[in-house]
């Protein structure tokens, strides 16, 4: 049977763990807030740029633009899988890796070649160990995430796409909808879809300088950069929110454990006292 001191030691140890999980939860909450702020700041730019792109694209034959042109057949697909570098964030990585894996298996079943670009250590470790062709990896970018990272990744996949290495590029990433809810996205990144401009804007006759074809060729890479940036930010926010939830439930579990152990501790202590008293009483009786 556990002695009083053993139980005491366990209580102390669980309390220490609880302190750590509590601190990690608070750090995750602070990081989440920051990430959400950054997402909000990119929104006006991303939306306006999307509008401009749609309007310019409406004036151009999209088959003439290398970014917008739909390939005749899709034989090779590149999946950009965005996961986290660190663990302790619940099922965040499991979920996104499962989604990516299913997509990869589906594409292979259709006879297509699948290449993986892994963003985040967890995804890299998963796909690297298995029978997948990981063409590029970006590890430890989330510690100091900035726009240059997004541009770098976008540049790499866009160049490979334009050189004809892939017929399609998908982004597989998680986006935080709220602090507790996250959505898994599997989005077609290339060919770029220009979206539709609404009716009112069609009425305006724009002058273009330079001509729309040239303008569009400049607009597309910028649009791809910002889309990649948003995906990275979304994934980072979702990661921190998952970590926050995981650490919160770990803190709760520790609390439950402490309560159970304290109850046990008190019972054992009570039993020891009772035994002692009955021994004393028994001893006194014997002396009579």
């Amino acid at each position, binding site marked *: 049977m556990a002695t009083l001191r053993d139980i005491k030691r366990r209580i102390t140890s669980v309390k220490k763990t609880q302190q750590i999980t509590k601190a990690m939860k608070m750090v995750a909450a602070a990081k989440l807030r920051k990430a959400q702020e950054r997402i909000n700041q990119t929104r006006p730019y*991303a939306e306006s740029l999307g509008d*401009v792109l749609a309007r310019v694209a409406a004036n151009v034959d999209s088959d003439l633009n290398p970014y917008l042109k739909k390939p005749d057949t899709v034989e090779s697909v590149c999946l950009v899988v965005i996961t986290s570098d660190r663990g302790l964030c619940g099922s965040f990585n499991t979920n996104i890796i499962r989604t990516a894996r299913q997509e990869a298996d589906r594409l292979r079943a259709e006879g297509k070649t699948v290449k993986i670009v892994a963003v985040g250590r967890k995804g890299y470790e998963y796909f690297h160990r298995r029978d997948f062709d990981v063409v590029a990896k970006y590890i430890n970018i989330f510690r100091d995430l900035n726009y240059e990272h997004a541009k770098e990744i976008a540049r790499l996949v866009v160049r490979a796409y334009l050189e004809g290495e892939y017929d399609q590029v998908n982004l597989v990433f998680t986006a935080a909808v709220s602090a507790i809810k996250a959505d898994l996205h599997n989005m077609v990144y290339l060919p770029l879809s220009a979206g539709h401009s609404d009716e009112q804007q069609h009425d*305006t006759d724009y002058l273009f300088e330079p001509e729309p074809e040239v303008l569009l060729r400049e607009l597309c890479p910028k649009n791809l950069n910002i889309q990649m940036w948003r995906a990275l930010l979304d994934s980072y926010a979702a990661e921190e929110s998952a970590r926050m939830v995981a650490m919160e439930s770990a803190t709760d579990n520790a609390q439950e454990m402490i309560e159970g152990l304290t109850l046990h501790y008190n019972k054992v202590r009570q039993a020891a006292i009772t035994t002692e008293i009955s021994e004393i009483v028994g001893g006194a009786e014997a002396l009579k």
Partner: protein
Amino acid sequence: MAAKKLHLDVITPFEKVFSGEIDGIMAPGHEGYFGVLPGHAPMMMQLSIGEMKLKVDNKDYLYATSGGFAEILPDKITILAEAAESADKIDIERATRARERAEQRLARKSEDIDLDRARMALARALNRLKVASRR
């Protein structure tokens, strides 16, 4: 009648650099500097690296831009740039470092670097320094 104003938004991926009413603007277009006053014909334009001058109540405000796009409507201009800084917010030290880095890269001329990128970086750094020197 009071002079007509133009609403301007300067937006980058990180922040709204400027949002407000202006009297006019000078910006670096694809084919040279251009000016826009209220009532301009709708236009989509590519911007190049250069300085942007806003006119508000007879005062000029200088900004350094690193290229981007402008959507011009009779009463509204939206400028989308990957970077734009007002002259007094330019980090001269950072721009100087960027210039040195780009110059070194160009001087080395090795095969594995992207010459176009280095040239663009140099142009951006020089532009920032030029605009900063005029504040």
